[in-house]
């Protein structure tokens, strides 16, 4: 080994650990900075309590779904059924509670049950029937949509006051919903980095054959991942029910939680093909989208312009990541 190889290795290692996650948080800092400057120039105040709370409130539901989506994508799959599942679980929650505090526990249990069931179906269809995840979860999503639309025309059920605290209360500058998101994200981070299951998610997403030859039960990993992803959607459903005070049949699809969550995950540097990335990047991706929103709101920019910027930001980010990995690959070859 040559004497100058060590520092070079260190810097590469640093770049690898930080990687896209660092990029997305740098971008987040940049957007906050620029946003602050723009809003200040506009004569407003950007980093107000109201704004900071607003960003967290806005990101919580998407953030929770995106954490689940991160697991699915890391394992080399994806989940297009989450938006419909969110609508369904918001209804299940509100209907079970029916305005009574006594119904809360039962409602949470019911939501968990429904979510686990949907996740199991997704995972089993993908692994045992060998249906492409895109089609499998799209199909399951349609099945849920049909059932929901058939049973409900509009908001239904009622969420008791006690439970609505989840949607609106805050402790200091931190909304309860953001704490819930943080808890979900930390749990997922913990699973991925500290448990065998997490290690296997990366292995299955990285190379199914290598994982199988190393004795990993790949089907089981995919199924568990989809159950967890659906549970995250269920939690988001509970949160949205708490916000609305009722369940709503279109709350999931109106929020575009399926594609937006995938976009946030990819924006956070997780590879769509699986095996590379993590929860931290996703949190950064979700926050980035929310801060962008907030800046535009403050500047009273047309809401449709936000969509345009959002689309461009996502594509540019992924193009940048593709370039970086391309350079690394090139060096290796």
């Amino acid at each position: 080994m040559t004497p100058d190889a060590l520092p070079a290795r260190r810097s590469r290692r640093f770049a690898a650990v930080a990687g896209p996650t660092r990029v997305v948080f740098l971008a987040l800092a940049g957007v906050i900075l620029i946003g602050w400057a723009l809003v200040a120039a506009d004569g407003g105040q950007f980093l107000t309590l109201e704004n900071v709370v607003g960003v967290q409130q806005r990101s919580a539901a998407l953030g929770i779904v995106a954490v689940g989506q991160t697991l699915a994508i890391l394992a080399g799959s994806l989940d297009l059924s989450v938006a419909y599942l969110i609508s369904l679980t918001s209804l299940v929650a509100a209907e079970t509670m029916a305005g009574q505090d006594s119904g809360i526990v039962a409602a949470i249990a019911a939501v968990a049950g429904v979510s686990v069931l949907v996740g199991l179906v997704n995972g089993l269809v993908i692994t045992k029937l060998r249906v492409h995840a895109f089609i499998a979860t799209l199909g399951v999503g349609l099945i849920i949509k049909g059932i929901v639309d058939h049973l409900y025309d509009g908001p239904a059920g009622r969420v008791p006051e006690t439970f609505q605290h989840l949607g609106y209360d805050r402790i200091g500058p931190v909304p309860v919903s953001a704490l819930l998101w943080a808890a979900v994200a930390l749990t997922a981070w913990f699973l991925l980095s500290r448990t065998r299951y997490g290690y296997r998610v990366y292995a299955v997403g990285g190379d199914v054959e290598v994982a199988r030859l190393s004795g990993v039960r790949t089907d089981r990993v995919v199924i568990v991942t989809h159950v967890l992803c659906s549970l995250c959607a269920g939690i988001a459903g509970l949160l949205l029910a708490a916000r609305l005070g009722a369940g709503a049949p279109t709350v999931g699809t109106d929020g575009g939680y399926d594609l937006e969550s995938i976009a946030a995950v990819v924006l956070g540097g997780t590879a769509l093909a699986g095996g590379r990335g993590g929860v931290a990047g996703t949190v950064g991706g979700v926050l980035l989208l929310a801060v962008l929103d907030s800046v535009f709101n403050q500047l009273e920019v047309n809401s449709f312009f936000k969509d345009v910027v959002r689309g461009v930001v996502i594509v540019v980010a992924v193009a940048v990541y593709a370039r970086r990995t391309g350079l690394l690959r090139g060096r290796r070859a």
Partner: protein
Amino acid sequence: MIGIGKSFLGVRVLGEVDLVAAAGEVHAVVGENGAGKSTLMKILAGVHPPDEGTIEIDGRGVSFGHPLDAQRAGVAIIHQEFNLLPERSVAENVFLGREPVRRGLVDRPAMDAATARLLGELGEDSFGPRDPVRHLSVAQQQVVEIVKALSLDARIVVMDEPTAALAEHEVDLLHRLVRRLQGRGIAVLYISHRLREVFDLADRVTVLKDGRLVTSAATGELTPDGLVRLMVGRDLGSYFPPRATSAGETRLRVTGGGNDRLRDIDLELRAGEILGLAGLQGSGRSALAKALFGAEPFTRGRMTPVRPRTVREGIAAGIGLVTEDRKAEGLALRQSVRDNALLVARASGRGRRDGVRELLERVRLVPPRQDREVRYLSGGNQQKVVLAKWLTVAPRVLLFDEPTRGVDVGAKAAIHDLMRELAGEGAAVMMISSELPELIGMSDRIVVLREGRISGTLPAGPSEEAVMRLAAGEVAA
């Protein structure tokens, strides 16, 4: 392993082979391509079950239904292509699927420490347990595989051509590693084409030929020349079409050609001639073919009539390449025979689209059906479709990279005849083959590559020993 035999699709590739490896022994397994080395090793690794014979480890009979069974029994195999996850760290790869846990959680410190300890025992300090595998060189990745084998408490480590992709100084490091494994009482089965390292490293050599055991002897009882004779010695019954009487005009000339895998290439391909290209694995044979074709172009030197920078320029210059790996690089397997045969013509917008049927008859596809998906064809027929693909554009130069690998005897003869026929019609033909008798039987002239350079040129009909010497370097020089 006693009396091991194996047949694929009724073809017996291995019969009555015995192999005894002692603890702490480096045991080289040598033989030409198709001698059955890889099959034997795959049986030992649990990839294929043997049809006959038994395997015993430490005196106990074992049978493997899955690679994992072999792993648990203490057999680790290090393939040329590694089974590693590039995005994960060294330690995570080493312990993949059996991560140590403490109180239900992965014990990362223990995992890293165990990996670091094994790396230390191997004297490897150029990378650590937390480094991502994608940043490692091929040689370093090989070390990771070895560490993985050690962490499994492997009693037997099989290394398949471990030095094929390594640079010279990395080879020395690997040899030191092998010695260390040996010192730990592990039996190392070492497959290699490089005779020098066989004599440097191995305590014992087993020679296979045509799926049978030729001999198994202590290295000291053999000489390099004797070993070469044992490997290649065969009946001279094989038939090859008659050679060309004279070579025509120069179709392609390279002077001082080079890129990151090749250096100082001076080469001439002539009309009517079959030029054989010999060399060990990793010597740059395929790289040379791809450079001439424009797929991995030369970055230095002159080439006439043109130095193609892309595949399309190569095709436009009348050059065609029959790739080594026909499934990965030659064919669209789920498309029909017809679609594959017409692929080059369609892509380049030149050549003929009619007469596919005649073309398929000409390449002796049996049966010459156009609508079957090529993945259902035999290896020989698939190769004939690849040939047909190039014949549509009537190339002036045709490069064949291992054209008869994995092809049955009948198809092999047909492909040989076709190559000669094409040369007879005025094409310049270059052929790469690891099978020396084939290369010698077919070629009008042989160029030998070693480590990216031309190490010599031989006239028609050299001895196999002469080719081997140029290919392997100093051995027996």
